[in-house]
């Protein structure tokens, strides 16, 4: 499943003669570089390689007939372990609330509507709430996208996202929707005022899922973004978007490592069906190139 660069690097381990712990360490430095090139955070890559090294310099590997194959297997398995098992959406309450947060332009609004489609296919009755009162035409974007796909959307215009969220909650209880999806404004993890708004929305609507939407091409900064959103607001899961391109997606590893929260979905296009459930093996192969 892993072709190309990483296999080449690891095959090279055994080439210069007997494999020693020192030779393995040298070779793993190359693996670390490949991870950084795949946008895995420098620190996360360092710690990951330490974990791999602990096992890769063991007697079992060094004395085996195919040590480089074993090391490749260790890297792949440790990556899958780190990325975590897939976990379903928590939809235990009625109504269940999902709140999307993340940086500007990550893909929240598009993902909100994709989630509505996903839930409808599962026999649920979702309601979309445009709680972004900041971005020009944000309301029109969500409303039009929702209506085009036949999903109900909260259409009352208000200039305060917290009050809007409360009003939407009231209306949805009356109309018996079983899943509420709150789309929020893009915000920086260092913008105190906007982080405060997100916290207040969360306190008002009590979501069972707060999903951090992260652009799949995010680089080293993924660690800062994820850590701040999780510590300040508290997230329950992650959605990686724009994975239909050729980004390696190392940000996935960084986000998962630093928050411990599950990756739930991958956005793989601009259309409503373009939402995939997270499969660790596939993402591991992609990051490892």
């Amino acid at each position, binding site marked *: 499943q892993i072709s190309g660069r990483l296999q080449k690097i690891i095959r090279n381990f055994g080439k210069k003669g007997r494999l020693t712990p020192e030779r393995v360490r040298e070779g793993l430095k190359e693996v670390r*570089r490949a991870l*950084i*090139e*795949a*946008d895995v*955070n*420098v620190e996360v890559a360092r710690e990951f390689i330490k974990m791999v090294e602990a096992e890769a310099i063991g007697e079992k590997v060094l004395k085996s007939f195919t040590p480089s194959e074993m090391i490749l297997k260790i890297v792949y398995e440790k990556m899958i372990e780190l990325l975590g098992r897939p976990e379903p959406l928590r939809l235990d309450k009625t109504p269940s609330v999902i709140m999307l947060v993340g*940086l*500007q*332009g*990550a*893909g929240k609004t598009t993902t909100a509507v994709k989630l509505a489609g996903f839930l409808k296919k599962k026999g649920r009755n979702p309601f979309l709430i445009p709680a972004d009162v*900041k*971005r*020009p*035409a*944000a309301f*029109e*974007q*969500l409303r*039009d*996208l929702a209506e*085009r796909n036949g999903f109900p959307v909260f259409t009352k215009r208000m200039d305060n996202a917290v009050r809007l969220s409360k009003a939407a909650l009231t209306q949805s209880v009356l109309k018996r929707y079983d899943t509420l999806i709150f789309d929020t404004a893009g915000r*920086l*993890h*260092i913008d105190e005022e906007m982080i405060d708004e997100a916290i207040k929305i969360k306190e008002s609507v009590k979501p069972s899922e707060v999903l951090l939407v992260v*652009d799949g*091409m*995010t*680089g*080293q*900064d*993924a660690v*800062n*973004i994820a850590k701040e959103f999780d510590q300040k607001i508290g997230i329950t899961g992650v959605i990686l978007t*724009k994975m*239909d*391109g*050729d*980004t*390696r997606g*190392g*940000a996935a590893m960084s986000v998962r490592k630093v928050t411990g929260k599950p990756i739930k979905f991958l956005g793989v296009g*601009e259309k409503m069906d373009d939402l995939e459930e997270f499969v660790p093996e596939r993402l591991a192969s992609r990051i490892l190139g």
Partner: protein
Amino acid sequence: ASMLRRKDPALLEEIEDILLSGDVGIETTEFFIEELKKVHPDKYLERLRELLVEMLSVPHESVHNPPVVYLFVGVNGVGKTTTIGKIGLYFRKKKKSVLFAACDTFRTGAQEQLKIWADRAGADIVSSQYGADPSAVAFDAFDAAVSRGVDCLLIDTAGRLHTKTGLMEEMAKIKRTLNKKREDLPQEILIVIDATTGQNAIHQVEIFNEKLGLTGIVLTKMDGTAKGGVILPIVRRFNLPVLFIGTGEAPDDIEEFNPEEFIDALLS
């Protein structure tokens, strides 16, 4: 002679970490580290700054015949529409007349979004219906720019991943359409890059440049914690000038690129 041979591996490693953490990438970081090994450790930071300034100083041809047509391109969500609004206002403050062309006829809400920015910038706007051919809108916008005697025409396009050949061909057609109108058009083709982007930005520039021939870069979202260091391998490889930096979501959150300030932030 023995002075030159002295290295400070700990300091080199610290510098390497700063550069890599800033998204400069393995290859370009290694280039800098190798260059630093050629000087005395006391001179590392000074030499690094020199190299960075040198690398980021790319000349830019900024004299064009009006109307100057700026075609904004880039992948999804990087800040193209917002940047056009801000640059429109920037030009208006310089007493230029500005026209916007809403050539993103695909994404929901795109035209409404650009219209709001046109009002903020004091610019006129040419748009069509959702689903119209973007090349046709560009064609009409240029005619309008000429007939209204406008100084600058800023064209918004739909976000598109560089890996989608159909969409890249649509973009090439927008360019060809303008080029057929007048052979110097569009005078500027600017790729908008999000500062939080990692090494994938290099592929983005590679493909957009191959397909269209880019004339410059706008780097957005520099108000976050990302350093935007990926522009170093980009500038090094494609020799493109960074023209503007986006520093927020408000109309005046745009600045002309200043290499020294960028480098200060990168090394801080």
